[in-house]
């Protein structure tokens, strides 16, 4: 079972780097939705914990991250009519390299962490850390509001992977609550994106500096 889980996590890590390296926003959305879908499968792979509540949480995550949120984002994109992230603060290749560096660092770092025995073997902890870092890189280097949302989603995915360590002990209510939070956050951001677009005729968040007092 563990080999399958590890393979899945390696795919997730690869998706991270892919998301960093592309300029087409549609591709980023699709990559992140694929990542969300794969992450939703993880609880099903960790059979020893599988119960009806884990199945429900996993189904909810797949539905939300794999379908609903990408759908909302694609609609938002259609409304504001943009296709590409034109001017990132750091180029696509350098940010990809930075992501690779962060992944390596996460692997090294998690070796040094004092983890419980059953958590050391799978790639869960390093994958979580690496995904969080990649989310941060996306958030800090991209200028368009939609890509920022993608960065936020990747960050959340990283936290979700970390949550897998607690699978079985975390109550269903908490997991559903997290998913609901995510949904509401993205929902609100979509509305804000529309407003930013109307007010500044652009989605460049750097323009928001004009609001500084």
């Amino acid at each position, binding site marked *: 079972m563990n080999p399958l889980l590890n393979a899945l996590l390696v795919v997730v890590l690869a998706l991270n780097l892919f998301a960093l390296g592309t300029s087409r926003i549609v591709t980023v959305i699709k990559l992140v939705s694929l990542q969300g879908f794969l992450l939703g499968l993880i609880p099903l792979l960790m059979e020893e914990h599988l119960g009806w509540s884990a199945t429900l949480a996993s189904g909810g995550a797949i539905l939300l991250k794999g379908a609903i949120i990408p759908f909302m984002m694609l609609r938002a994109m259609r409304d504001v009519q943009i296709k590409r992230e034109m001017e990132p*603060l750091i180029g696509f290749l350098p940010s990809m390299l930075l992501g690779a560096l962060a992944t390596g660092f996460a692997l090294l770092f998690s070796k040094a962490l004092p983890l419980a025995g059953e958590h050391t073997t799978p790639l869960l902890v390093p994958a979580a850390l690496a995904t969080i870092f990649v989310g941060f890189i996306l958030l800090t280097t991209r200028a368009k509001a939609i890509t920022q949302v993608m960065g936020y989603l990747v960050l959340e995915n990283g936290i979700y992977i970390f949550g897998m360590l607690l699978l079985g002990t975390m109550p269903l209510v908490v997991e559903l609550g997290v998913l609901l939070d995510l949904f509401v956050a993205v929902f609100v951001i979509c509305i804000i994106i529309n407003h930013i677009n109307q007010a500044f005729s652009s989605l460049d968040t*750097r323009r928001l500096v004009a*609001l*500084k007092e």
Partner: protein
Amino acid sequence: MEYEIQNGLKLILAATILLIASGLPACFFGRKSMFAQRLTTAFIVLGSLVGWWGLVAASFGTPVSSIVWDWHLPAGHFSIGLDALGAVFLIPVFTIPMLGSFYGLSYWRQSEHPENGRGLGLLYGLLAGGMALVVLSRDSILFLIAWELMAMAAFFLAGAEDEKAEVRRAGWIYLVATHAGTVCLLALFCLLRQVSGGFTLSAVDAGSLTSGIATTLFVLTIIGFGFKAGLMPLHVWLPGAHANAPSHVSAVMSGVMLKMGIYGILRILTLLPVTEVWNGEVVLAVGAVTGLLGIIFAIAQNDIKRLMAYSSIENIGIITMGIGLALIGRALHRTDFILLGLGGALLHVWNHSLFKSLLFLNAGTIMHVLHTREMNRMGGLAKTMPVTAGLFLLGAVAICGLPPLNGFASEWLIYLGLYHSVDAGSGSIWTVGVATVALAAIGALALACFVKIYSTVFLGTARAPVHGQPRDPSPLMRYPMLLLAGGCIVLGILPQLGFPLLQNAVAQWMEPTDPAVPLLLSVAPFQWISGMAMVFIVLVVGGTMLLRRKIVRQAPEPMGTWGCGYAQPTERMQYTATSFVEMLVSLFRWVLFPRIRRPAISATFPAKADFSTEVPDPVLERVILPAFRQAGRNMMKLRLLQQGRIQIYLLYILSIVLFLLYWEQWGF
């Protein structure tokens, strides 16, 4: 007996809750509803009366009673208690707001102030209830909650007329000052918890304190509570806030709320062991400086309420001097110092709350008629408002510490205490002798100050045109003032009435090892004072009646005061409030820094010119505001961090997360 005393404390708690909630029902009525205001007043009166009942049932805190309940907050308990010291301060809390809200029924009619009438009523009760809770609480968390309740209620009350820029400015200064004080209190209570091991306010064992900690606790107490009490130079918020608040609010703020600062100092110093003489000397010196500067600043004011606010600072100074003397007594184990110093200070707390409230309500009456606080625009009111003038005169005599009124009684106790220390002949306490001189100077200057007010406001002729005929106020405004004046007379002639309670309160500062505590009555022979006061009153009243009859019989036609035999005198030829004290102001210009703009006269026939003088608060204008401006300029450099770009802010978070990871893993 035990049962009754517990019940008394519960009654007082009920009174506190009644006061806090007194303004709530009125919120469900219309903005202009006078019924709503009457309802609020009724609740405040009810709460205060229940409070008095509770005080009597608990026999004024002797023996001590307490209640401890658990609550849902993570720290502390709901722990309240009553002792004699608390009872001393609860008496004004349950008296002045009651009279003030009664006064407000006519002074601040909700039908004329629909924009803030209900809010004012609500906050008035909150202020009174908050103060009661401050006195009751025996737990630092509860104390701080009550303290903030009181401070914030006062902030909104002082800013009632927030459409005026001046009021808003005074409100901000108050807010900054009160929170600067609260910061010190937070530090104080944290340190106290370290030392005593809990949030309960309980006596600290002398053995557990190093001298450094003891000094820190003492300094934090004086500064933290000094902000509220108005000790120099922490008084900066006081004149503005008192001048701009509605008068019945100023009466409570000055008469009762400042005393909460004094209460805090006394409460914390009751818990701390005081063994060093310098503690008392510092407090005595701070009190003397506060008193002297307070009255000097007061003399220079032309705004009647600002003047009274400075005079409150002066009285706080006198009270603080009494406390300083008592602290010296504690360090030297001299029971007579403690008895006279603390007894005088506590009696002055009562007295000041009586006559300063009376004077503030009086000032409100004058403003109600003339719509100005500027004394240079008043004058001649004694003829049109005889009752107000008489009550003001009585309050002024009391506040100057002249016999036979109550100010004399308390100041005399402090004088006696200071004389005792001179008697003692110990060279180490020479400061105390200086303090006697300071107290005498304060008294003389206070007299000058109130002669200035009375003569400019009530004597002479009106200096500015008055709309309508000035009249004495309605009974609703008059009765509270009459009651306060009655209190001044009773406590002036028979201060012994309060002695049993004062004796019990003072006993809390005595060590069990101290020599036998003398009775206050035996140290200060007040039977004599009472007798002399009666004789004096009879002589004054009799003499006035005789003279009056004679004058009325022989009186020529009435003329304007200070007419000086001019053929065509005008009201502009009178002494103004400014000119009356010109000499004193120039004598103290090295501390007052008056701003005088006068024209340079060079030609033989000079053209028309202007002259103006103004005395802003020197501490605020010359020290605090420049310091804040400089700090503001320096802080602008930090704006560099605030770029306004989300990406940068996220980078901050990322770098801190990485830093923490690094720290956790590898340390430094």
